[in-house]
């Protein structure tokens, strides 16, 4: 072993001498850069992780540790009692499955329609294209809160050109069901859908025209060009769009509260966790008194419970990123 190392070292100095000291300089520079990068990464990661770490330490504390001013970060008495309580209060298993189902289906629907629209904007020329694209920007810019009252009325008395009232004799009340939300997702009007359209359009615009033309010459129609040539290339951008839409759906309380009020979701459960805790304690079931610290402890546990599945998802989806890296060498 050591012989090999020695040989390597000798070899290094020999090569260094041959290159007039250039090799040594370059190796030192490389290591310096590596160390600098490590320091930077460490600092930035710590910056982002610190609040999460604080939450973790809060969540494994026994409640009496919170009120102890001599304890800063590391708990003296460990306890998982509060975590169990939070899981019970949020109705975690059923809320988790509901959230998974809703987020997965909604983000898939949004991804599909946004991909189609983005591709249409990127690859075709048609009249009023600029005007329609300005509408996309408008959709990104307008905060959903400003149109919420109007949307509420829209779905309370839902009708398409009077067709529904022709059949039923009355307008349909779609409030409280998930249908309007799916409809909106199909129409690219969900949460931040304009951004996905824009992203996907920019990506498709970057693909060389020759690729498309080659496909046409080889006998591909518009659709098969789209599915067989364009989509495989767009994997990284589609992965990130899917991730965004999944995460935003997962933590969204605005649309969920408006359309899916009855379904138990993680986001809405987390939002009302403080009230649930208050009711639970008021019924005399808990072992603790109501206090700000206690509520906030339960809240941070709830936040962790909501965030953890997303991190797991990212770790899985990240593979898509890395894999596509090796696949997309075919351009030009």
């Amino acid at each position, binding site marked *: 072993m050591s012989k090999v190392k020695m040989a390597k070292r000798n070899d290094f100095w020999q090569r260094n001498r041959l290159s007039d000291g250039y090799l040594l300089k370059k190796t030192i520079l490389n290591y310096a850069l590596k160390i600098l990068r490590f320091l930077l990464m460490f600092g930035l990661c710590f910056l982002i992780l610190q*609040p999460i770490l604080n939450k973790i330490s809060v969540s494994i504390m026994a409640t009496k540790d919170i009120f102890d001013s001599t304890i800063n970060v590391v708990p003296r008495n460990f306890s998982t009692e509060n975590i169990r309580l939070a899981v019970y209060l949020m109705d975690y298993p059923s809320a988790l499955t509901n959230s998974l189902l809703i987020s997965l289906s909604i983000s898939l629907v949004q991804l599909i329609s946004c991909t189609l629209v983005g591709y249409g904007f990127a690859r075709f020329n048609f009249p009023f294209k600029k005007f329609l694209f300005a509408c996309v920007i408008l959709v990104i810019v307008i905060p959903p809160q400003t149109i919420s009252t109007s949307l509420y009325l829209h779905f309370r008395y839902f009708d398409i050109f009077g067709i529904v009232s022709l059949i039923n004799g009355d307008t349909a009340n779609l409030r409280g069901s998930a249908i309007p939300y799916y409809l909106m997702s199909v129409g690219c009007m969900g949460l931040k859908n304009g951004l996905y359209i824009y992203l996907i359009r920019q990506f498709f615009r970057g693909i060389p025209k020759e690729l498309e033309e080659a496909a046409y010459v080889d006998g591909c129609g518009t659709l098969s060009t789209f599915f067989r040539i364009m989509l495989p290339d767009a994997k990284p951008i589609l992965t990130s769009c899917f991730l965004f839409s999944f995460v935003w759906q997962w933590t969204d309380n605005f649309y969920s509260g408006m359309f899916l009020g009855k379904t138990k979701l993680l986001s809405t459960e987390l939002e009302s966790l403080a009230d649930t805790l208050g009711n639970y304690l008021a019924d005399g079931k808990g072992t603790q008194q109501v206090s700000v610290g206690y509520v906030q402890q339960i809240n941070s546990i709830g936040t962790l419970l909501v965030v953890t599945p997303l991190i797991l998802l990212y770790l899985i989806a990240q593979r898509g990123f890395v894999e596509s890296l090796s696949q997309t060498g075919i351009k030009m």
Partner: protein
Amino acid sequence: MAKVFKAEKRPKEKKVRTNIIAGPKKDKKKTLAGKKAIQGYLFILPFILGFLFFMVKPLFQSFIMSISEVTVSNEGFSTSLNGFANYSKAFTIDPQFNQILADESWKMVINSLATIVFSMFVALLLNQKFKGRAFVRAVFFLPVILSSGVIVGLDSNNSLVQGMANAIESSSSASVTSVIENILSTTKMAGGFLETIFDIVNKVYDIAIASGIQIIIFLSALQTIPKSMYEAAEIEGCTKWEMLWKITMPMISSMFLVNWIYTIIDFFMKSDNQMLTKIKQEMVVSMDYGFSSAMAWIYFGVVMVFIGISSLLISRVVYYYE
């Protein structure tokens, strides 16, 4: 030379294509361009329908509100048009509006620039190969989660965790930026520009949290650049620095545009934005729907103009394959 050659060649190819796909005699009336236009409309049909059904009406209502006097009674709204009185009220009567508008616009510019530069830098770092890259990438995905939906509100209200963060901060006494700032200010070098820089450095957590999405967008753009380009450049004797400006920048410039626009919009819709707070306050507390939607429309207008100008400027340098 190559470009001229391509331009000459393209029409020929198109002719060939029409012959193969559409057949020479089947439908003479439809040109290829017309066909493509119809296909294009089919692709963006979901958006058009969605926009018509779910966006036009609310937008129209909000605009009507902004140019009318809205009175709220038990039975609902009633509106009576009063021209642009609400708009002139915002600009000339309301004492805060102009001030807040100018402040927010300036903050928007500074913060967006800082966010873009930061996220670009981090994305370039994360795209390199090093040990623990998967972990670091996962960490940089956290801001996307933490800056979304219900979590933002809960986090900023949580004094327990904040107190803990303060305890940690105060236990590490030396702050590099404050030392540098002291030195510079005692030597009277710190002008307005430096102060802005220090301001940004001190807010690095906010910027890191705000740039989660941008980092991922940049990363996915970086990953679509073929490796062969860098290899070719290296053989030709390019340095890393030259590669950054000659290959990386042009190749991700289209995503740069998206990121820039998204950053502006994200800042403009932030929940701690003074302008939005004011609009909400007028709407909820004073029940002055007309005035608040007029302010919202002015704010939209400013942001749209801002986006329009900057995207015009940026799209001049954006590189597409076309």
